[in-house]
Each structure stands twice: as structure tokens, then as C-alpha cells.
């Protein structure tokens, strides 16, 4: 219909348009306003829940044995029967079922009800809803950059209450707390996490050929040469992802930046204290190119180097199952992309993943990852109680138990590894809880949107299809918004 409109317009109205521009604005406003007045009158009153007010009384679960672990939440916030907490997330069916199940303990102990809504248009919709004054109570924000934008431009995000701060101090590392903090104020505790520094491989294939898991970058390249000599392309990759095509390549670059130069330089790079086309970044990207742009190494199961750009990231690692490819660097969540029935295990499994080796032994054990942060938009006891519940070790363990098919990882130190279902998730939790591990958040999620969700994707895709390292990095540097 809009096409038809446009056609009619361009054919008949082009001349009139210029002369009526000003009047159109006024008339449009008048009609919208009057229409809403007329129809609003028929709308009846709405049932919008009132915020604020302290909930008195005793929580219904205070005496129950299973509620003991969250006693502090119950005593602090009291009886929340009949109260609703609206949660808005980017996790949709069928992955939302474990989320909902993990809230059951909270609901039965406090009496509150959690209304869950997932949407894949979450990131765009959340901004619209917050700006127009219709925010959810709680939102799981996947990017610290988005949290910062919301805090600074709308001022609608509510600071975390003391109970949440205490939990985060107790259960999470300083680095995680930092990502939920904007301008010195702490807003959002971490919800979950994923580990990106993984290389997927087939344990069976490695065992059959006598290959061993590399522990340094050079060993990994030697192994790649060995595999290439057998006629198999050792690496496979896919960076296609619709309009977000290119993001898997940014993870490669971030992982290598972290390994070559350490967390401090990485932080400077993300904060644009060193330029994007700094020689250190160029060296890191060239190291990535040593694998991704090496025609001897890629693209197993798909074709030449350029096929990386056209292969979707969902399909990128599947040739491992057919023995057409040996290694695929992708995050822990990639486990969900293997077809049902694939055995994901270290011993004799069809697939498993090893930690992406370090390049520079001086920089410790860097871990690249990402996660969601719990932001609150309404100042009410039930909302604070829920935010507090989600930041406890109790919830992390509940969520682990509620996710029997795997796909849940948290940096919560109180998470018991045995409560996490899949082998790869256990491996991720171990890496996150390792005291030597230095965690850094996915850099493209921290950079301004124009770079981290724009030029970096685009230029790294062009880089895969032939652009030089120097040109690609200079173009990204030029796109960094001046501020």
C-alpha cells in the first residue's frame, strides 16, 4: 500500500508538495491531535500499574524451606503478592522457556508475577519505548554501549539499590561491575555471559589423525599447516548475518588485540585513546589475515577466501561435522547451531571447543566475551526485589538447572559448575571463574554504534573480500564520531 501511495504521489503531487509543505505540517498536527482527543475519550481508563510505595507485610514464602536461599530478598521487600514485573528481553521462544522457569522460585516465594516479553527487535524497540515514556520495568541489555546511551540521553534508568550492589560486589569481579556502571554510578548487574575465545573442533577427527590441541598461536599455525598438507582446509568461517554481516570478524580482531597487546591497550583501543588504524591494530588484523585470508587455510567446506563473506555465521562451523574443516573460531553459544543429536563432549565427541591460544605469554590468559545486563526503569519494591534476585548466586544456579539443554553461562562466582548442563558451558564457566583469566567485553559492543555496529562490520567484510588492512582500518578510523 505504501508503494501505491508513493507512486500516486510522485505522479501527481510533486509540484504541489513544495507549496504546501508548511501548511501540511500544521494540518498534520491538528488532525493527529484532534483524532487522539476524540478517540481517547472513548478509550476508557487504563490499568497502568502504580509505581513506588513500599510493600508491607510478610512474603508468602518466608516459612517455606525452598525459599531459604533468598530469605534476604523476602525480608527486605516484604509481601509482593499481586504485583507484576514486566521484563523485556531479546531472548525469544524456544530459548525463553529456561528463563521463565528460573523465575518460578522468586514468584512462589515473594508472590510477585513476572511478565516476560521477548522480541528480536529488542534493541531498536527498547529505545523507542523508553523515549516515549512506556518503558518495561526490567530490560536485559546486551551492550554496555546501549546502557550508556539510555542513561545519558533519557535519564530513565534507575540506579541499582544497595541490595543489588552488595550482591554484585560479592559474586562478580570488578571488571563486570565496571560494565554496568555509567559516569560513576552503578545501574545494571550482569545477568549471564558467553565466552567468545573458543575454537570449535572435532575431538574424534583430532584423535583419528593424532593431532593435539595447540596451546600457543604458533603451535596452532603449525597444526594448520599439518592439516593443510593432508588436503583438508583447516579453517572454516562465516561472517554473514543479514544487516549485521561482519560481526564474527570483529570478534577475531578483538581476540587477537587482547592477546597481542593485553587488556590495557585493548581498553585504550575501545575508548579510542589510540586510533583505530594504530600500527598495533594493523599488526593484529594482519595476524587474523594470516588465517582468514590465507587461501591454504580457508574456507573448508565452502570454497575460497571470499566465501567467508557469503557464508552465514550459523552455517560457518557445520563442515566440521563432515570432516571438511578442522577448526572454527566462534563463541560458546555456537553449540546451539549444531543439529540435534550432535555429541558435544571432549572425549569422543562430534564437536567440542578449545580455548583460543595466546600469542604473547606476558599477557596472561585473556578472555573475550559478552553478556546481558539487568537495567531497571521503575522505582518499585517488586522491581528492585526481582533485580536483586537475578543478581544472586541462587538465581544463577536455578537458571543453570532450568537449562537442561545447555546455553547458559554466568560469571557469577557462586555458580556451581555441576549445575550447568552442557560440557561447553562448564568449560566456559571454568574459564570465567579462573582467577588468572582477564575478562574483556566484546569491543564492538562498547564502541559507538556508528563504528561497532556500522563501519567496523562493513570494512572487515570488505577486508575479507580483498581490501587492504591499511585501507580498511583508515576507513573505520575516519568514521569514528567526533565528540
Amino acid at each position: 500500500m505504501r508503494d501505491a501511495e508513493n507512486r500516486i504521489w510522485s505522479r501527481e503531487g510533486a509540484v504541489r508538495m513544495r507549496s504546501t509543505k508548511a501548511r501540511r505540517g500544521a494540518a498534520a498536527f491538528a488532525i493527529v491531535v484532534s483524532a487522539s482527543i476524540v478517540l481517547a475519550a472513548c478509550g476508557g481508563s487504563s490499568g497502568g500499574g502504580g509505581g513506588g510505595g513500599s510493600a508491607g507485610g510478610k512474603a508468602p514464602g518466608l516459612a517455606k524451606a525452598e525459599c531459604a536461599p533468598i530469605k534476604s530478598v523476602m525480608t527486605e521487600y516484604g509481601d509482593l503478592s499481586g504485583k507484576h514485573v514486566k521484563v523485556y528481553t531479546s531472548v525469544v521462544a524456544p530459548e525463553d522457556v529456561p528463563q521463565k522457569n528460573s523465575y518460578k522460585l522468586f514468584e512462589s516465594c515473594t508472590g510477585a508475577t513476572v511478565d516476560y516479553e521477548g522480541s528480536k527487535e529488542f534493541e531498536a524497540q527498547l529505545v523507542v519505548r523508553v523515549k516515549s515514556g512506556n518503558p518495561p520495568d526490567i530490560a536485559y541489555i546486551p551492550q554496555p554501549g546501549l546502557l550508556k546511551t539510555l542513561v545519558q540521553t533519557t535519564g530513565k534508568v534507575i540506579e541499582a539499590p544497595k541490595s543489588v550492589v552488595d550482591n554484585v560486589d560479592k559474586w562478580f569481579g570488578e571488571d563486570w561491575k565496571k560494565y554496568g556502571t555509567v559516569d560513576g554510578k552503578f545501574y545494571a548487574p550482569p545477568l549471564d555471559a558467553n565466552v567468545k575465545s573458543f575454537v570449535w573442533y572435532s575431538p574424534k577427527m583430532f584423535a583419528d589423525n593424532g593431532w593435539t590441541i595447540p596451546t600457543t598461536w604458533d603451535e596452532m599455525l603449525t597444526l594448520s599447516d599439518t592439516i593443510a598438507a593432508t588436503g583438508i582446509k583447516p579453517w572454516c568461517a562465516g561472517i554473514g548475518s543479514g544487516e549485521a554481516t561482519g560481526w564474527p570478524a570483529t570478534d577475531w580482531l578483538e581476540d587477537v588485540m587482547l592477546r597481542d597487546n593485553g587488556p590495557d591497550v585493548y581498553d585504550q583501543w575501545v575508548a579510542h585513546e589510540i586510533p583505530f588504524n594504530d600500527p598495533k591494530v594493523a599488526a593484529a588484523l594482519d595476524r587474523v589475515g594470516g588465517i582468514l585470508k590465507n587461501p591454504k587455510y580457508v574456507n573448508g567446506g565452502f570454497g575460497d577466501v571470499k566465501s567467508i563473506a557469503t557464508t552465514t555465521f550459523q552455517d560457518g562451523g557445520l563442515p566440521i561435522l563432515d570432516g571438511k574443516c578442522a577448526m572454527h573460531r566462534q563463541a560458546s553459544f555456537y553449540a546451539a547451531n549444531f543439529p540435534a543429536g550432535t555429541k558435544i563432549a571432549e572425549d569422543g565427541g562430534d564437536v567440542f571447543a578449545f580455548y583460543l591460544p595466546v600469542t604473547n605469554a606476558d599477557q596472561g590468559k585473556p578472555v573475550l566475551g559478552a553478556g546481558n545486563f539487568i537495567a531497571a526503569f521503575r522505582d518499585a519494591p517488586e522491581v528492585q526485589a526481582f533485580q536483586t534476585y537475578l543478581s544472586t548466586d541462587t538465581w544463577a544456579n536455578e537458571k543453570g538447572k532450568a537449562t537442561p539443554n545447555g546455553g547458559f553461562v554466568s560469571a557469577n562466582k557462586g555458580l556451581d559448575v555441576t549445575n550447568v548442563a552442557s560440557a561447553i558451558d562448564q568449560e566456559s564457566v571454568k574459564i570465567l571463574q579462573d582467577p588468572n583469566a582477564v575478562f574483556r567485553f566484546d569491543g564492538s559492543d562498547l564502541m559507538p554504534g556508528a563504528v561497532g555496529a556500522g563501519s567496523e562490520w562493513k570494512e572487515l567484510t570488505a577486508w575479507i573480500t580483498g581490501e587492504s588492512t591499511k585501507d580498511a582500518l583508515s576507513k573505520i578510523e575516519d568514521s569514528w564520531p567526533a565528540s
Partner: protein
Amino acid sequence: MTTTTPEVPATATAPVPTAASVAHQKLTSPWASFAAIIIATLWTIPTIGLFISSFRPEEDVKTSGWWTWFSSPNVTLENYHEVLTGSDTKLATYFVNSIVITIPSVLIPITLATLAAYAFAWMKFPGRDFLFVAVFAMQIVPIQVTMIPLLKLYVDPPFGLPQLAGKFWTIWLSHSIFALPLAIYLLHNFMKEVPGELIEAARVDGAGHVRIFTKIMLPLMAPAIAAFGIFQFLWVWNDLLVALVFGGGNLDLSPLTVRLAELSGTRDNDWQILSAGAFVSLIVPLVVFLSLQRYFVRGLLAGSVKG
């Protein structure tokens, strides 16, 4: 469309064929039919592919194209099963929501637009041309520009009016607002075509505006109204943006398109069920379109070409 065709004068005698019969002859030649069949086939192939895909098992869909189905015909209803039962909320709920959203969103603009079109076409009042141009010009206001301001009005209405957000009202209203400019314009053009003599005759017989509108205009305008109705129906039924923005925050208000958009899972690893989902949501508009299609073309031409 008045192109001068010298060889066909208005008062043509028998041996000279009329423009209509020339067109009829040319369009019914075997070659024209052949071309039409080729085009129809080409245009239908993607839909057939989608249809076949919707019955193929997950592994086949993900590893090979739909045309390989002819050599290895595996059929499963798993995809449809997943679409119908794959989430906590039943698909029927979304279906009902779609219907609840669509019907008022079609009826409200049609009612208002026929009345407005009549006034613009046959009633004389000061500022009529100015108002009509203003309505016409509003067609170029992009929906996206209006979203945040409009939602703000719903959430926090001026003059102490009751809050609307979180109800079907917001979606109905928004669809009506966005549809009205085109609706008024199309119906106005159609109404203008009705010969003035007819109206005058009715006046002489003592009919007022109400009688002229109900007894003469409405029956004559049935094709145009039906055409616009289909237009609006398809637009609203397929709409995701308006429903997401104005119905946001409430699964009770979500139409089928919202479920469809999330069908493939959080990281798109279930995309094999999308084709089945597409067919499920396609049934209703297909039935509506097929049953009303003759009005569709007729009304479309009546409204738009003779502006």
C-alpha cells in the same frame, strides 16, 4: 487518459475497429497468452519453492535447495507442528489478535473516509480546497517520524484524557491515522467521477445530503470501498512495525506477525520453520484477496489513474 488516435474517430463507422476491440484482439493472440503463462510461471516459482520447503525436514532444508526435493522427496509435517505449538502462547491467540486488530483498523478508516470524501467532493464549505490539499499532502509523512511523538501522546495524553497505552485502541487508532489520507484521496477521486446530473436530479426530487450519500453514493462506491478495504486489510494484516511499537509491552496485543518474526529463535537457528510459518499466516489474506479480487483491480484503476 486522452491520447489522440486519429485513425479511430469518436464516430467510427463499421469497418474501423474501436480501440477496445483492437486491444481485445491483441491481448488474446496466442503469443500474448504464451507470454502471460511464462510470466505467471516465473512469478509463482518462488512461492512453490517456499511451499515445498515448508514440508521438508530440517536437515534437508539446511543443506540443499528445494528443487532437490523432486529427486529425494522427504515429506514431514514437523515444521507445521513446530509453528503451531512451538511457543508458550498458542498460535491461535496470535491469530485471534490479528483478527481483532485488523477488522476495526479497516472499518474505522473506511467509515471516516467515505464521509470525508463525500464532503470534499460534493459539499461547498470555506477552506475546502485547502483542507483537501492538506489531507492529500499528509500521505508523504513517513510513519517512522510519527512513532515516538504519537506514542508519547498515548502514554501521557494532554488535557487530562485517559491513558491509552497497553490496549488495542492504540493499534486501531494508529492504523486509522496512517490510512486516512490515502483513503480519503482515493474515495474522493472516485466520488468526483459520479456525474453531477445525478446529484442534481436527486436534489430536485428533494433529497438532502444524507439521502444522497446513503442512496446514491454508497451503492455506486461499493467497488472503490472494497478495493480500499482489501488494501488496508493486507497492510494491517502484514504489519509488524505498528503492532510492535504501539502494542509493545503486551503479548496479549501481539498479532501473528510478531510471532512470525520470532519464529526462527533467538539466534536464527530454527529458520527452517519460517516457510511453514509464512504459509500459515498467508491463508487468511489469500482467501480475502481471492474472494474480492475483481473489486481490487477495478477500484484501484478508478481511484488512482484519473486523479
